[in-house]
């Protein structure tokens, strides 16, 4: 019985995992017949399920009937518990409480399509091993694969909107997708306008100052892997007073951003790429992507 439960839970997941789960677990029913082999679980794919859904639906009802035969009383007992436990799992996420609150709210919004067999419990255990998304169909919701996929997508989008909410200042109180999007768009536009304005300012200021970056920013900072190199840029041997202000720029700027683990790879080839970029400003040459990937080992 337990194995049947596990199988069912593994089966009633989102669209692209049945192939994988069939490989991993032995299933008693023959669903494998009609599924195309190329749909394998990667979360970002757009589900293309026009012919898929009918077969899925049959199989799911078949499965659940099995379940109901063996555990007839389960549904009655766990009726209250489901609304608290049910949540949608994304990859290795273990924190379910904000999600469950949100999903119970979502459940209230849904029109009650009373499909009795759509009550399953979530499992946290082996989320880490799989790289596809486990989706639970809540009670009173359609188990159509389209709506499952839709729900996955919506959850992903709302999760990312929450991430964006932290980035954009002053968006803590705004709820709702439309207003958030407005704020985000305004913020990006204002940042881009700021860049344009500052570049105008820099162009105006620029011809008055003649500075040499070699003297100001010693190459040591870029070769060292120490996180404190930023703080100890140091006064290079050839510092004159006219260069000191720009040195101050680098120091203040670098100190004000907290970079505890800034590891910068050796810049033997970076100047070449940059020369490449800027010497032909108008007909811009492409940076070789291999150069970029090889040099930029800074983000790990």
């Amino acid at each position, binding site marked *: 019985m337990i194995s049947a439960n596990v199988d069912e839970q593994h089966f009633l997941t989102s669209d692209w995992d049945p192939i994988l789960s069939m490989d991993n677990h032995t299933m008693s029913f023959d669903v494998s017949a009609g599924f195309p082999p190329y749909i394998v679980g990667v979360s970002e794919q757009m589900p293309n399920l026009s012919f898929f859904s009918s077969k899925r639906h049959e199989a799911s009802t078949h499965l659940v009937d099995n379940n109901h035969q063996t555990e007839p009383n389960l549904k009655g007992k766990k009726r209250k518990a489901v609304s608290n436990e049910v949540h949608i799992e994304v990859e290795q996420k273990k924190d379910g409480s904000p999600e469950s609150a949100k999903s119970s709210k979502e459940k209230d919004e849904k029109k009650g399509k009373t499909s009795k067999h759509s009550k399953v419990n979530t499992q946290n255990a082996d989320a880490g091993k799989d*790289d596809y998304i486990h989706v639970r169909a809540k009670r009173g919701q359609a188990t159509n694969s389209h709506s499952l996929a839709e729900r996955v997508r919506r959850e992903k989008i709302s999760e990312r909107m929450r991430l964006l909410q932290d980035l954009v200042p002053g968006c803590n109180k705004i709820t709702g*997708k439309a207003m958030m999007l407005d704020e985000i768009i305004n913020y990006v536009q204002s940042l881009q306008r700021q860049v344009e304005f500052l*570049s105008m300012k820099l162009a105006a200021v620029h011809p008055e100052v003649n500075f040499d970056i070699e003297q100001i920013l010693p190459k040591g900072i870029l070769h060292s892997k120490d996180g404190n190199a930023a703080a100890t840029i140091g006064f290079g041997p050839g510092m004159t007073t006219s260069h000191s202000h720009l040195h101050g720029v680098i120091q203040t700027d670098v100190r004000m951003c907290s970079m505890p683990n800034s590891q910068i790879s050796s810049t033997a080839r970076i100047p070449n790429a940059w020369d490449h970029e800027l010497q032909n400003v108008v007909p811009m040459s492409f940076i070789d992507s291999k150069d970029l990937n090889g040099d930029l080992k800074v983000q790990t």
Partner: protein
Amino acid sequence: MHNNKYLKENPNQPLLAYHFIQALTRINLAAHTTSTKQRSHIIKHAAYVSMAFAAGNKRTWTHAVLHNRFPIKTRFHRLSGSRRSFIVSLSRNKETLHQAHLLRSLVPGGHAMEFSSLLMETANYIQYLTAQVRLMQCIVEKFDMHV
């Protein structure tokens, strides 16, 4: 496999500063031949390029910036008609459609992504934009103090 969320790294400020200032020195070398307006355009372009360079080639927006010269000529790749209509059809609300389209035009390479990855790209883009703006403000501040 962290397919769903990118690691939210902090922008690499020293790298950004190094490249941008190096760009400024080079631009300054040719200051006598370029007009101020032209130079502001070039500096803005250099800002975006150094931003994209500091962010790495892993992101879609950096790729669009570095290979399509995003701020100057908005010539990034657009979705083919059928795919775009499919993506569009998923959002039933007309207002969000309009907003999504606006966001796609703002973020470089935005037209070639679906909505959830567009949001991730926007987050990353905002991070690097704020870093770049802070850097430029620092530089301008220092110049203003001494002039």
